[in-house]
């Protein structure tokens, strides 16, 4: 067993224990603090899985802003929940049934970390490897279309279906002239984004991110409408 899997298992076990604590403690302040701990554990898990941007966001948002938000709510409401029965049997039954169906659904998933899983070999990956945030072959290539993209993928004789598609690249990097002939052209760090997460976020999924930003804006406006005191009228 690799150290990666060992750390992953330990952190996930801790996260499960903390999650049970979040649900079961009576004091809401304790639940909030356990929620912050849970978020930090998730950030560690994602760092372990190399999802650095996600870990960054979770540490800032989950452990920081969420905790402030929940503590602020507790100031307005109350610190403790009512005494409830220890185990809610219908809920437990529902949860166990749903959980076993979902686990039964995961048995056909590809192995954890399998590089030949469909998610790593599909059409999306070809698109990612070719275009997102890359310097183009001729330097300026304004009106590229899906047809030119398809041509270029045919031209390329490297195994571009594997992810990342440019993994065989490396030796032919002396001059720009020969770079276009084989492998991915101009695949150095001039003028485009080495962080593929950001380039995907802003370019490949630009529409999606725009509407996510609109969702955040709407949430802020909802907060203002629900909670802001009307000082002018008072």
């Amino acid at each position, binding site marked *: 067993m690799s150290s990666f899997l060992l750390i992953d298992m330990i952190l996930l076990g801790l996260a499960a224990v903390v999650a049970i604590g979040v649900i079961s403690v009576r004091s809401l302040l304790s639940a909030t603090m356990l929620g912050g701990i849970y978020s930090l554990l998730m950030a560690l898990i994602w760092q372990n899985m190399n999802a*650095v*941007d996600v870990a*960054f*966001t979770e540490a*800032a*948002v989950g452990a*920081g*802003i969420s905790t*402030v*938000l929940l503590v*602020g*709510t507790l*100031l*307005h409401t109350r610190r403790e929940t009512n005494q409830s029965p220890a185990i809610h049997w219908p809920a437990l039954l529902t949860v166990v049934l749903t959980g076993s169906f979902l686990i039964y659904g995961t048995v056909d998933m590809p192995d954890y970390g399998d590089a030949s899983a469909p998610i790593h070999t599909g059409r999306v990956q070809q698109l990612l490897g070719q275009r997102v*945030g*890359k*310097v*183009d072959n001729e*330097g*300026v*290539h*304004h009106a*590229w279309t899906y047809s030119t993209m398809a041509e270029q993928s045919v031209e390329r004789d490297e195994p571009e279906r594997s992810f990342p598609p440019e993994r065989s690249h490396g030796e032919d990097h002396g001059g720009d002239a020969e770079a276009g002939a084989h492998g991915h052209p*101009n695949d150095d760090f*001039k*003028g*485009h*984004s*080495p*962080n593929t*997460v*950001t*380039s995907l*976020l*802003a*370019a490949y999924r*630009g*529409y999606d*991110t*725009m509407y996510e*930003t*609109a969702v*955040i*804006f709407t*949430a*802020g*406006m909802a*907060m*203002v409408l*629900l*909670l*802001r*005191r*009307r000082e002018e009228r008072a």
Partner: protein
Amino acid sequence: MKDQVVLRVMTKLLVPYMLVFGFYVIAHGELGPGGGFQGGVILAAGFILYGIVYGKSELHRVAPRRVIDALAGIGVLLYAGVGVWTMLLGGRFLDYSVLPAADYGAAEALGMVLVEYGVGITVCTVMITVYDMISEEGRP
């Protein structure tokens, strides 16, 4: 918490670094881990820390509500405006390759940076609004 000397001094020391780090994370989003979402939250954390320690009135002095509310909309408009700009230049919506830059890669980078700034502005101001509203006192 205005009477806590240690908190006040440490906040004055910490907040500039938090803000600079937030700007760094937004500006270097396409070079390393980070981006508009994370950087915006870090910027907002600086303001929230300042508001917690020095009080709401002081927070409203450094970040007036009108400015914060307006910036939340301006961030989204900046994002959508980049899309409209690319359409005016003859491309498709959010097709960064037509932006005026030295080459294709620079145009892509320009578009991504502008879009990240828009995201960062919106996320930062909305998070400040969230703190501001949730610590509001009295009935609406």
